[in-house]
Structure formats: C-alpha cells, structure tokens
C-alpha cells in the first residue's frame, strides 16, 4: 500500500489536508466518524481505476478550523469550499457516516457540484421509532463494536502508528470526535430530510447489515427521500463504517455505481 500525495487547502483561514492517489476520473471521499487518521485499503481499491481525492473536514485528522463553525450553514459552506479547493467540483462524490451527510448536502444544495453520489450509512436523520445510538456517550470498550462489525477494524484505525506523538495523537482523535459532535450533536439530525428531495444526482446508498449506530432501516428513508434515481445495497457483515469492515465489497459497489 503506497502513500497518497499530501497537499493542503485553506478553509476559513485553517489548513485542511487533502490526500490524493490513483489515476483516472476524479472521485471525492468524505470520511466517516474518526476521519482518516491513516490511508485505507478501501481507498486503494478505488484508486486502482480512479483519482481518489480525500479532503479532511475541519477538525478531522489533518485539519483544524471546526472551532469557527457554529451553524449547519457554516459547516455546509466550509465543505463546499473544501470540495472546490480540492478540485472536486462536478466530480463523483462518496461520503460515509458524518461525511455522508455533507456529501448529501452538497448534492442537494449545489446540484452542479456532484456528478454521481454514493452514500455509506450517512448521518443527518433521526427516527423516534428507531433511535440511532449515541456515538458520544459510550464506554471505551463498547465504542469499537458500535463503529464496526469487527471492532478491531476501528481500533486499528485510531491506534497510534509507530513514531506518533504520544500526546498529540490522542488529542487529534478526540478532536475528530469533537468536530463530529459540533456538527451533529446530540441526535445526528440536521434536518437533511427536508433537502433529500433536492438531490437529483444518481445515488447509491450502502448500509452495513450490522450497523449498530444507525439502524439499517434508515437506508430506506434515504432511498425514498432522494429525488434522483437511487439504489440501495446492504453490505453483509459490515457495521457503521462498512468501508473498514468490507473494503473490497464496498469499493466494488461504489465503482459499479460510478461507472
């Protein structure tokens, strides 16, 4: 697994890391909870046929500036800047979990900005009948199982690599969680339901069948709410961050959809 190319772009005066790898048509990726503390096998699969561009949302690993964002409008405009400055305007966009909610917002509010859309268990809705679990109130030993079907996958994502700064690494992981909380506290409900009907891009919705955080029934709400042609696929043996649990299956499904 070779390293991606690292650049940074400026959003509201704060640097946000952009990782780029591969060749072919551009594909943007907005990561889920925890962000991208390291490059992933899932992104390598995509990079085999596409130029994968993964900008870090403000506050996620490699980026700061979440502290400037007070409202959902602030967040949406920050993500729009990030997309533009990373050269992703008009490209295909893949978003997962918290990143999925923002990918959906981009397609809804700036329709020209997103060619085809793939959403992996996106945030943004809340169902009283089937409440989502709380990612910000979990004991340490419970959290990995909430993030992935195989909790080890989450643990591996957030564990410090060799040579990491032992003080700054945990702070960076907490910051990613704070950034997510800042945008989605307390229920993950951003009112996205009202805007789903604005999404005209052909959309693939992927959901892990063992998502313990956002019930797979939410997938149906996205599929019926989105105006453009949408298709739903359930990923077997995958949890909330399905791209960690089943990188090959998820990458194949995404590439099939993007064509």
């Amino acid at each position, binding site marked *: 697994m070779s390293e991606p190319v690292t650049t940074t772009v400026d959003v509201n005066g704060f640097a946000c890391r952009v990782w780029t790898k591969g060749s072919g048509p551009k594909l943007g990726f907005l990561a889920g909870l925890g962000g991208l503390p390291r490059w992933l096998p899932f992104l390598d699969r995509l990079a085999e046929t596409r130029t994968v561009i993964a900008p870090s949302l403000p506050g996620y690993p490699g980026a700061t500036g979440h502290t400037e964002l*007070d409202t959902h409008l602030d967040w949406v405009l920050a993500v729009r800047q990030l997309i533009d400055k990373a050269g992703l305007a008009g490209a295909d966009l893949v978003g997962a979990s918290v990143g999925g909610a923002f990918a959906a917002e981009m397609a809804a509010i700036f329709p020209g900005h997103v060619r085809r859309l793939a959403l992996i268990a996106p945030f943004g809705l809340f169902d009283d009948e089937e409440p989502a679990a709380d990612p*910000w109130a979990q004991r340490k030993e419970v959290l990995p199982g909430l993030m992935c079907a195989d909790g080890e996958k989450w643990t591996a994502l957030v564990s410090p690599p060799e040579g990491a700064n032992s*003080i700054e690494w945990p*702070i960076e992981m907490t910051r990613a*969680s704070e950034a997510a909380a*800042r945008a989605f506290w*307390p229920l993950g409900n951003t009112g996205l339901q009202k805007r789903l009907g604005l999404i005209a891009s052909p959309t693939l919705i992927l959901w892990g069948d063992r998502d313990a955080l956002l019930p797979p029934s939410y997938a149906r709400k996205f599929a019926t709410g989105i105006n453009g042609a949408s298709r739903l696929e359930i990923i077997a043996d995958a949890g909330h961050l399905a791209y960690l649990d089943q990188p090959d299956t998820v990458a194949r499904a995404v590439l099939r959809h993007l064509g």
Partner: protein
Amino acid sequence: MKLMWFHLMPYTELPEDFNKKHPSVWVDIHSSLFDPRRAHHMYNDFMDELEYAAELGYDAVCVNEHHSNGYGLMPSPNLIASSLARRTTDTALCVMGNSLALYNPPTRVAEEFAMIDCISGGRLIAGFPVGSPMDTCYAYGQNPSLLRERYLEAHDLVKKAWTEKETFAFNGRYNQQRYVNIWPRPIQNDPHPPIWIPGGGSIETWRWCAEMDYVYCYLSYYGYKAGLATMQGFWNEMEKLGKDRNPYRAGFLQFVGVAESRQQALDLYTEPAEYFYGRCLHVDARFATPPGYVTEATQRSGIQGMMQKAANVASPATKAALKATNMKDIVDGGYVLIGSPDEVVEQIRHVAKSLNVGHLMLLLQYGNMSKDTTKYNTRLFAEKVMPKVKDLFGEWEDKWWPKPMAKGQRAAVPAFRPQLSAAE
C-alpha cells in the same frame, strides 16, 4: 474564615442494590426510583436543615444546580434560594450556581439572581459554573464543542445586564437580543453581586478568575488531601500573576462528621458516607467525557500530568485511588473529616491553612443522613468547632462577600405561623 453550609439535596432512598441494578445515578437514572411523595418530605427536611444552619450562625447557606441526578434534587437552586431569602435574615445566600449556557436567553439568570438579591436585601453570592458534562451535555443536550464559548458569552451578557444603565443591544456569537434591560436589578450594584466560579483544576479558569477578580471554588467530593495539589496549583498561578495570597480568593468543599467521640462519629456517619460514595457517585463512565468538553490545552496538560504521575511512583492521589466506598478508606482519604469536636477543629485548621482557603463550604448532610443526625452534626459543629476556627485569616479582608442593605433598612419578614392555615 467563613463557614458555609452546603446542601446537595440527595435522594435519600436509593435501594441497597442500586449499583448492581442500575448503570448510573445521573442522566438515565430510572424514574421508577423516584417517589414524589417521599421527595415531598425530603425537600421539606432539606429546607428545614438549611434554615436550621442559618439560625445557628453559619455565614452562608449554599445550594447548587444539577439535572437528572439522584444525588442532587435541585434543577433550579434559585427556587430554594428564594425560599431561603424569606426564611433567613442575615445569612449569605450562595447559589453555586447557575450553569450559564443552559439558560436561553442567559439574561434569565441576571433577572432571577437580581430577584433573589432584592428579596434577600443584598445577600446573594452568584455562582457561575460551566456545569458538569452530565448536566450540560447529556441531561440538557448542550453541544460540548460550543459549551465553553457559550458560557463565556453568557457571562459577558449577564454581567453587562447587571451593570449597564441603559437598554442595550447584545450582538453575540450565540445570543442576540435587541433590548437588554433587566428589571429588577440587583441591590449589590457596586458593581454587581460577588461572582464565584466553581471549576476543576484548569489553568485557564484560574487565570480568568484572577483577571476578573472572582472567587475560585474547587468543589471536589474527595476532600482536602486530593484537593491539595489543585489548590497549590491555583496559588502558584496567583503568585505568577502577581496576586496576593488572600485566602478569600478561594472556596473549597469538605464533608464533615462531628460527634462526641471519633467512635461515635464513625457510628453515626458511616452509613450516610458509604451511601454517598457508593450509590450517589455511581455514574456511568460513558457520560464522563463528551468530546470537546475538556479544552485541548487541559487535555494536553492532563496527558502530560499522567505521564509524570506514572513516572513518579510516590504520587498519592491518582484517579484510581479516588474510588473508595468504604468508611475506612473514605476517612483515610480525607474525603470526610470525622472525630470529636476538638479533633475536627484540628483538622479544619489544617485544611484551611494547608489549602489557604478562606471560604470553607461544609457538607454536613450527605447521602441518606437523617434530619435528626444532620441537625446534630450541624449544631455540634456550630457550637463546638466554629468558635475555635473562626479566627483564622482574621488579618485578611474578604472582598468577595455580599454587602447587604443595613439591617435597619431591611424589610421585617413576619414569622411563618402554620396554625393559621391549620385552623382553616
């Protein structure tokens, strides 16, 4: 020194197997455990106890704010304080305090505190805590990443509402109000009621208290031994900032159980202390650290501190040690001071001097302590301990104490006469 009588108002009838059957005393404590008819008696007992403490000459009675909490039945301490304003005469009323970010708009706090100050003739101490994670982020759903900013802005707004003479517009990041003009306004207007800040041990809070000239209060349940490092840190920071060591810059919370002898104290206070440290502090760890609640600077110093502690084997008060739930460890750890009056005198003098704290907030009721035992503890302390410790810090002026109206100018509140209503 000032001796202040603090009530947490714990629910006193949590079942014995509470810890086994229930994950948390806070946030999601089950409603089936709450019997409103029993709470009727608890509230009235607790208010009797506060009034009794005032009668016995404690300098202040203190109340605080908690939400969804089995050991703190005061979502609104202001309700209790307003009742105390009528049923006490000279005692300071310390509301410790209102978590500013939970009030929308925060001018509500400026108004209610002004009401209490007016009703009481200027006896209010205004406490402004950020509030615990459980109260603010979970029970009240506040965003942990915005909480501190909102708190600081609300503080600015409340203070301006108290001091600005003209109606003004407040154009804040989180609060925007076209017409701010609170009515009533506090009696203590030179410049405003004393502001006290209960906080953890963060350097930012210490610096802010010094800059604003507020009292810093360390309200730990773990007593003076565990609190020593924090208070030393506070005083070191004051020295760096060129502030004097006036002990009235600080407040500290301490549990006490006094009786005729140490053995009698153990007999009386073991059950309520073990109830408190066992059942009342049974908080689910998942509610401890909402992301963003602790600033990155404090996280950084915390991680560095842990590394230093790990390197320093002799470190006494590590977090792991703060788990005692049996009386021997509770007493050995200094969470609860117990003994005969003279033994307690000696310990209180030691606590006050070693921490250099002029405002000692005493918890003389804790856990399921009965009203009789609470009154006994309160009376014995007032009669046999207080006179022997009051002299401490006489050389310092308490510049942070309420300045009420002169006694002769204050309203005469008629004594409550229950026989009138009983005769109806």
